[in-house]
C-alpha cells in the first residue's frame, strides 16, 4: 500500500516562523535583541519622566572620575565621573534607532529601484543598474564621512546618509526576484486581465518577494549600527553630551592605558548587538530558503 503524502495546510509564513523558532541560535539572538530593545526603551521612557537608572547619564562628578567597575558603578566611570552603564543604556537607543530607520530608508529606495528595473527591464533596467554599479565602486565610508561632516552630524542626517548609501544590495536582490516572478503564471494572468503595473507590482509580485527582502532588512540593521559606531568614533556621530557606544570609546581613548573599561564595554555592546542581528538574519534566511 503506498501512502499518499499529506498536503500540509501550513501557510508559508507559518512554516518560516516554525523553522526559525526551531533554530536554537536564532532563539538566543532574538532574546538578546529583545533584551537590548527593552533596556533601551525602558531607559528612554524612565528619563522622559525625569527618573534615571542607575544614574543620570550626564551627571558629572569629578571626585569619582575614571573609577574601575565596582558594586556602585557596575561598568566604572569616565573622565568626568559619569556612570558608564547609564551612558551605554542611553547609547543603546541611538544604535537601535539608527539601525532601524536607516534600514527603512534603504529598503524604501532599494525596493523602488529594484522593482522598476526588474519589472520594466530594457533601458530602465540598464540605467538603474549602472547607477547601482557606480555606487558600488564608491569608497562608501569616504562619502558617508564627507556628507555627515559637511552637513553636520545630527541623528537625522546620519540616518539618511547611511540609508542613502546602502540600498544597492536590496535593489539588486529585488530586481532579481522581479525578473523571475514577472514570468510567473499568476502575474501573466493578472496582466491579461488588464491590471495596471502598480497593482501587479504591489499586489502580486511584492508579497511573493517578501521573505528575501525581510532577510536583507534584518542583515542591514547591524551594518547600519556598525557604520554609526564608526562615524561616532571619528567624532561625526550623534553629538555629545548625548552618549553613543561609539563616542564613549572615542572619549575613552585618551585614557586607553589607564581605563580599559571605557573601551571594552561599549565595544562589547556594539559587537553583541550586531552579531545578534547577523545571526538572526542568517537563521531567517535559512528558514526561508530550505524546503521540507
Amino acid at each position, binding site marked *: 500500500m503506498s501512502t499518499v503524502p499529506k498536503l500540509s495546510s501550513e501557510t508559508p509564513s507559518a512554516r518560516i516562523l516554525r523553522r526559525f523558532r526551531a533554530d536554537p541560535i536564532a532563539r538566543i539572538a532574538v532574546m538578546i535583541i529583545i533584551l537590548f530593545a527593552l533596556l533601551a526603551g525602558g531607559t528612554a521612557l524612565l528619563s522622559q519622566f525625569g527618573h534615571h537608572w542607575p544614574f543620570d547619564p550626564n551627571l558629572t562628578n569629578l571626585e569619582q572620575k575614571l573609577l574601575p567597575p565596582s558594586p556602585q558603578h557596575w561598568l566604572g566611570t569616565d573622565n568626568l565621573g559619569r556612570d558608564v552603564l547609564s551612558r551605554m543604556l542611553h547609547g543603546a537607543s541611538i544604535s537601535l534607532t539608527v539601525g532601524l530607520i536607516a534600514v527603512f530608508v534603504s529598503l524604501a529606495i532599494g525596493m523602488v529601484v529594484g522593482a522598476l528595473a526588474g519589472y520594466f527591464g530594457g533601458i530602465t533596467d540598464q540605467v538603474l543598474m549602472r547607477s547601482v554599479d557606480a555606487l558600488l565602486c*564608491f569608497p562608501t565610508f*569616504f562619502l558617508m564621512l*564627507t556628507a555627515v561632516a559637511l552637513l553636520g552630524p545630527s541623528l537625522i542626517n546620519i540616518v539618511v546618509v547611511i540609508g542613502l548609501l546602502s540600498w544597492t544590495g536590496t535593489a539588486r536582490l529585488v530586481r532579481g526576484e522581479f525578473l523571475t516572478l514577472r514570468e510567473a503564471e499568476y502575474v501573466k494572468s493578472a496582466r491579461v486581465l488588464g491590471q495596471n503595473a502598480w497593482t501587479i507590482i504591489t499586489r502580486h509580485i511584492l508579497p511573493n518577494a517578501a521573505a528575501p527582502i525581510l532577510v536583507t532588512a534584518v542583515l542591514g540593521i*547591524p551594518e547600519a549600527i556598525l557604520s554609526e559606531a564608526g562615524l561616532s*568614533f571619528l567624532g561625526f556621530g550623534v553629538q555629545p553630551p548625548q552618549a553613543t557606544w561609539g563616542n564613549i570609546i572615542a572619549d575613552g581613548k585618551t585614557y586607553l592605558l589607564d581605563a580599559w573599561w571605557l573601551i571594552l564595554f561599549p565595544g562589547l555592546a556594539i559587537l553583541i548587538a550586531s552579531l545578534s542581528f547577523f545571526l538572526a538574519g542568517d537563521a531567517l534566511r535559512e528558514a526561508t530558503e530550505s524546503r521540507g
Partner: protein
Amino acid sequence: MTSFLIRRLALSVVLLFIISIISFFIVTMTPGSPYPWGELNPKISAEVKANFRKKFHLDRPLHEQYTLMMKDLFTGDLRSIKDDRPVMGKIMERLPATLALNITAILISLSFGTLLGVYAARNAGRWQDMAGSFVAFLFIALPGFWVSYLVAIVLVKGFGVPILGTRSYGIVFPNGFAAGLDTLWHLLIPASILAIGGIASQSRYLRATMIGTLREDYIRTARAKGLAEETVLYKHALRNSIRPLVTGIGMLLPALISGSVIIESIFAYPGMGRLFYEAVLERDYPTIVALNFIGAALILLGNLLSDLLYAAVDPRVRLD
C-alpha cells in the same frame, strides 16, 4: 579581449565622471565656509577674502567651478585650500603606504579566508561548519576601531611594544634586516585588523562554491584513486572553486579603502585614509574631491585586475 578592455575603460570613465559630480556637489552644496580662517574674523580684509575666492575659483558659478577643479586635477594644478600644496603631491606621498596596507590586508584575507572556507566546506553540515559560520559572523560584527584599541592595550601595556606609525622611533637598529622587520611589524598589525572582515566574507563565498565543487564527479574520481584528502581538497577542489577568491579581490577593495580611514587614523599610519580624515576635519574641498576620485579609480582598477586575473587562472573564462 581588446574590445573587453575598451568597453571596461569606457564604462570606468563614465563611472568616474558620475562619482566626481556626486562628490563635488556634496562638498560644495553643504553649508559652511571653506576659508582657513573664521568666516567673521574681523582681521581678514575683504580684499584678502576676494583674492582667496578668486584663487580657488570660488567666485565662479558652480558648473565652472566643477570643470576648473577637474581640469586642475588632471593637470596637477589642484591645490589644497589649507596649505596651498598641490593635492596630487600630497596624495602621491600617501599612496605607497595605503597600497602596502591594503595589499597586505588582501593577502591576509585571502589566505586565512581560504583556510576557514575549505575547513567549513569539508565539514559541511557538521558542528565545525556551524562554528565556522559563527566565526565569520563574529568577524563581520567586530568594529575595527575597537579591536585596534584592545590590541593596543594588550601590546603596549602588556608587552611594551610600540605599534604606532611605520617604524619605531628612538631605536637604533644594528642592521637593515632588523629595521625591515620593524617596518613589517608596523605594517602587519593594522593590516591584520583591516583584514578581519575580508577573512569572513572570503570564507563564506569560498564555502558556498566549494560545497558545489565537492559534489563533482572528478572529485569522486580523485578520491577513488586513493589521493590524499589534502591533495583532493587543495589541488582538485580549490582550483575549481577559485572564482570567489579572485573576484573577491575586487569586492574587498571598497571596504578596505573605507576601513583604512579609521585604522590609519588610529595607528598614525601615513596613508590616504588618514589624509582623507584630516581633509574632512579641515573642510579642504579640493583634497576631499580628489581623494574620492582617486579612491574610486583604485577600486575600478582593482575590479579590472581581478577580472583579468580570473581569466588568466581559469581557461574556461573568456573576456569578450
